[in-house]
């Protein structure tokens, strides 16, 4: 309790509190974190993001579509998905990921639904009869489950579903007909996740190695300096490309693991350098000498006397690395080496470009992704600057 009071009472904290711009930035970052937490808690699933709710449309114009057209689009997409799932190796798993979702059925007339059900029936029949597909009969109940979804489709929309729908078409849809808003928000989670994991890993590793190198000197220092000099000579984008290829045939190829490894391998270097320098300075401080003459061992001195006094540097580095990681993630995903099979701002920007949307005046996908990233990075930059100012003894 006393410690917390102490933390709030520090000169640095007070200085930060006086910096109103930094507080606004902090509030924005908190909002992003809340959004990320919301996504993580299942508020927006990956499937939801991939669900087609309509063709490439401008915000607000979606409702003007004719029901027929909408039906045609969503049904086609849905059936393609089911077919693709049935052709997959792990049919059961793939099927379980196919969902009608709340959006495909919104504002459907009974006639539409009937048409849909008929299509599903036809499909089921086709599957039953088709020898080429070679489907395990035990999977048929699964298809029956899909049919059972009709019941759900026929039910009227609840107020909540209507709200979710309204929100998801807030910023229109992309070329594939997916909600831009939901994809953008989902990408916050990806960005924050990659940022946090990378920054935590890089700062811990950098601080540990830097403090050890600075404090012990000698061969430890030589080894650490050698490692980071070597690593920093590899551009991390190139490293990521290499890793992406290395993981092509592994189970991790679609996860974020390659991104983590590539960022983790290079991002700790800056922190390590800074902490090493600070340690070189701190170890000549008299209180460290006092601890040595008291008889404390090196581990104790590092943990209690050196590292706590580099906390401000770690904090600033953490904030800077977070930005760097988020920006790098976007660039890599844009190039196609980063995040896969999940929404990401990089992918959204790429999609917008590839489909010729931007050229055609459909700017909202690239616009929303860029704006989200811009605001987050700006907020973090302002916060890092404020932290640096707060910890700078020369500023009053």
């Amino acid at each position, binding site marked *: 309790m006393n410690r917390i009071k102490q933390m709030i009472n520090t*000169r640095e904290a007070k200085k930060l509190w006086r910096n109103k711009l930094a507080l606004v930035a902090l509030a924005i970052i908190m909002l992003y974190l809340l959004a990320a937490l919301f996504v993580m808690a299942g508020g927006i699933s990956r499937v939801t993001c991939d669900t087609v709710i309509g063709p490439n449309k401008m915000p607000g114009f979606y409702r003007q579509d004719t029901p027929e057209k909408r039906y045609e689009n969503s049904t086609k997409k849905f059936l393609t998905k089911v077919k693709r799932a049935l052709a997959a190796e792990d049919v059961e798993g793939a099927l379980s990921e196919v969902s009608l979702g709340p959006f495909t059925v919104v504002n459907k007339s009974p006639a539409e639904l009937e048409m849909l059900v008929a299509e599903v029936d036809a499909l089921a029949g086709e599957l039953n009869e088709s020898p080429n597909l070679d489907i395990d009969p035990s999977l048929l109940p699964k298809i029956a489950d899909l049919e059972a979804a009709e019941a759900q489709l026929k039910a009227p929309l609840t107020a909540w579903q209507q709200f979710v729908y309204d929100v998801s078409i807030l910023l229109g849809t992309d070329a594939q007909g997916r909600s831009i808003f939901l994809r953008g928000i989902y990408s916050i989670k990806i960005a924050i996740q990659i940022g946090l994991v990378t920054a935590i890993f890089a700062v811990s590793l950098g601080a540990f190695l830097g403090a050890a190198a600075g404090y012990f000197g000698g061969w430890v220092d030589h080894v650490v300096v050698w490692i980071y000099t070597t690593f920093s000579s590899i551009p991390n984008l190139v490293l990521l490309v290499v890793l992406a290829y290395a993981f092509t045939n592994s189970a991790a190829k679609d996860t974020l693991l390659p991104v983590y490894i590539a960022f983790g391998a290079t991002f700790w270097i800056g922190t390590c350098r800074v902490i090493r320098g600070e340690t070189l300075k701190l170890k000549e401080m*008299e*209180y460290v000498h006092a601890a040595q003459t*008291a*008889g*404390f*061992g090196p581990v104790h001195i590092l943990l209690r006397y050196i590292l706590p006094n580099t906390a401000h540097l770690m904090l600033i580095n953490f904030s800077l690395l977070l930005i760097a990681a988020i920006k790098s993630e976007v660039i890599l995903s844009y190039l196609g080496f980063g995040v896969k099979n999940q929404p990401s701002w990089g992918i959204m920007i790429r999609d917008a470009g590839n489909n010729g949307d931007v050229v055609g005046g459909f700017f909202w996908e690239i616009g929303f992704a860029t704006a989200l990233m811009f605001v987050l990075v700006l907020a973090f930059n302002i916060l890092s600057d404020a932290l640096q100012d707060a910890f700078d003894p020369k500023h009053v």
Partner: protein
Amino acid sequence: MSPPPTNSDNDPVLVRVENAVKHFPKRGGLFNRVIAKVHALNDVSFTIKKGQVLGVVGESGCGKSTLGKVVIRLHRPTSGKVIFDGTDISQMSNQQLRPIRQRMQMIFQDPNSSLNPRMTVETTIKEVIGLHDVVPESKMDETIDQLLKKVGLRIDDKMKYPHEFSGGQKQRIGIARALAVNPEFIIADEPVSALDVSIQAQVLNLMMDLKEELGLTMLFVSHDLKVIDHFCDSMLVMYLGNVVEEMPCEDIHAHAKHPYTRALLSCNPITDPDQRGELTVLEGEVPSPYDPPAGCPFVTRCAIKTKQCETENPPLLDRGNGHRVACWEVE
């Protein structure tokens, strides 16, 4: 008052330094080779008897701080012995040193850097006591309170962090930390140099009281001849890593023999404006410790040098009464 050192010849010796040498390598060049050596300590020998306060005085770079750090084994001497209460600690490992560390403690110069800014006073002291197990856990709080009272701090100060104290108070905390493990021997490295005059006197008084009360033996390092003269029983005068003179403090004004000691005496700012004209200013500067003169270290600035001084370093010879001088020209 402790008796003058001349009467205490029978006192057992607590610290004996024999021919201590410390070189610091300077590295550089393509492969980080040793390209030069700083001769920080050059064949330094002396003894401190129990209860005695030995002062070490000299200008910056004379090796006085290195000497303190070698004695407390923050630095390992390049060669020579540091014998503490009969045991040579000069080459011991940190593990072996731990029990001895409890018996010798250090007070540091800069009150702003001698306390860990992230630790309260209580934690700072508790840590040291806990490490050496000098007090049972149950009596810890009581001990800390007594200690704080002893150095003139309030008991409610113990929950505070260093930045909440003034320089003088921080120095008191540093003293409390040093005394926490009941040491016999204290090395004080410029303990009052960073303090204002009025605070300097407070801290010197405190150290004086504690020394009397606890019967401490001390090595007191300072650049300020006035402080050394006031506080110590005898003093070493150092120049460029060499001890050039050792004498009881009472001898300094009347009997200081080495030309450097005499120059230091006259340079030390007098507090009487009437004596202004009598100042003799020592010309020149201290030579680089990377490249000390071949003979006597003081030869470049000495007014009474001869041919011999330029080639041979004079030995530190005993002139009786605990007075040792290293000079060819002093008989």
